[in-house]
């Protein structure tokens, strides 16, 4: 499978703190990768580097020519004082054909709320609208930064089901940061565990058994993920404490 984005040896240091250290990733066609890691692990900065909106101090990023990327930001909460309809928001600074808007609205179940005010949407509706917007220029890669962070469990499930459906029906790759480990493990094919460096990566079941993963997320979390053998050979305690 051809690569969409390849990153190698990404390093970012800010205010004498290492944010990313030799981070690498290879996103191929039809990949579904989830990046997990504790708060402040550099996940969002990493995504910004991949999208080109943040320049790393060193390292290489190779993007496929004319790669189109859809993006869903973290903590999206539109300003209430701005009156704007969902439809206007979707099409703001986007080139598209009207039919496309109709199709995507159907695909993401937002046909009924197109003329609602963006500020009046529920959290679940907002995430679907963002998803619709990110799909508007038919992207090859979807990048999501904690898309279900502020949703209750029912809406989380709905959102991930929708995302899975889109992944299945479209020729699309997905790269997502998420804390919803139980969802991640059940739907993702590949997990990258990031804590300033890439701790481990691979299939969810394998990552759940990795000692680095266990020391980052604790035994309970790892148990939730899978049955594992306790093989603790190093710890993150030092890094976590400083």
């Amino acid at each position, binding site marked *: 499978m051809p690569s969409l984005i390849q990153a190698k040896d990404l390093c970012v240091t800010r205010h004498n703190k290492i944010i990313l250290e030799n981070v690498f990733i290879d996103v191929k066609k039809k990949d579904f990768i989830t990046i997990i890691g504790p708060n402040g692990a550099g996940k969002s900065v990493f995504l910004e580097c991949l999208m080109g909106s943040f320049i790393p101090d060193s390292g290489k990023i190779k993007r496929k020519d004319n790669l189109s990327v859809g993006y869903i*930001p973290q903590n999206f909460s539109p300003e209430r004082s*701005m009156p704007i309809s969902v439809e206007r928001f979707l099409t703001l600074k986007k080139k598209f054909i009207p039919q496309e808007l109709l199709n995507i609205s159907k695909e993401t179940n937002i046909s009924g709320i197109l003329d609602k005010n963006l500020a009046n949407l529920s959290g679940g509706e907002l995430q679907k609208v963002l998803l619709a917007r990110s799909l508007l220029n038919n992207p090859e890669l979807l990048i999501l930064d904690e898309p279900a962070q502020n949703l209750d469990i029912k809406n989380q499930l709905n959102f991930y089901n929708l995302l899975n459906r889109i992944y299945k029906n479209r020729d699309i790759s997905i790269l997502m940061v998420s804390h919803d480990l139980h969802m991640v493990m059940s739907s993702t094919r590949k997990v990258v565990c990031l804590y300033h460096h890439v701790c481990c990566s691979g299939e969810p079941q394998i990552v759940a058994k990795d000692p680095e993963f266990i020391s980052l997320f604790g035994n309970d979390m790892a148990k939730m993920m899978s049955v594992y053998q306790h093989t603790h050979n190093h710890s993150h305690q030092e890094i976590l404490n400083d």
Partner: protein
Amino acid sequence: MIEPFIIRAIIAGVGIAIIAGAIGCFVVWRKMAYFGDSLAHSALLGVALGLVMGISTNLGTIIICSLFAVVLIWLQQKKILATDTLLGILAHSALSVGMVTLSLLEQSIDLHSYLFGDILAVSSAEIYFILFGGFFVLIFLYFNWSSFVLMTIDEKLAKAEGINIVFYQLLIMLLMTVVVAVSFKIVGLLLITSLLIIPAAAARQLANSPEKMAIISSLLAVLSVAIGVYSSLYLDTPSGPSIVVASTIIFITISVFSFIFKKNN
């Protein structure tokens, strides 16, 4: 026969109202009211600079206010102090330096008219300044409208879609600078922010799109300025406060009606 100064007052007032109403929406959306207020405070230093250098006080104001915006953005990037702290320091030190400088100058100036506005003080040169400045602001707003709106909704999203956030932040501050510089003689330094936010806040209750909000806001600002200037001319009240009183009455009226008829939103 209408006196020429009344015609000047009307042209100046309408010009200012249109740009203040439109830019005011961004002040409301982006929560820049305190920034606008601080900018206006620093304009007094601009007046002092203009008088000391022997250039127009409008030009002096533009120079000082632009400098103010650049220094603010630079300090914000450092992230050592919160923005409102920075604004407080910059605004009041600029105001104080301006006051001290003005009091040291030989020539006497009408401080009251700078603080609260004086529609009668508008000269022909200032009319050109207002029209040129207003044209400049509207052109920039028009051509960058969607980028401004998208950035206002969510900066991360806008950044990911290739919008240069710092550039547009600087641009919106620069546009506000121009608005302050062209309008402070009529509305007064202390009251500019209200002309920016009150019509916009009233328009919010009537509009269902950002564009409509900007247009309605401009229209309400024109109405406020017209009523304010009229009462200033015939009741001899200070023009700035008269404009603000008019816009407040409009705001309250619209709020009451929209509360009764819409209940929510």
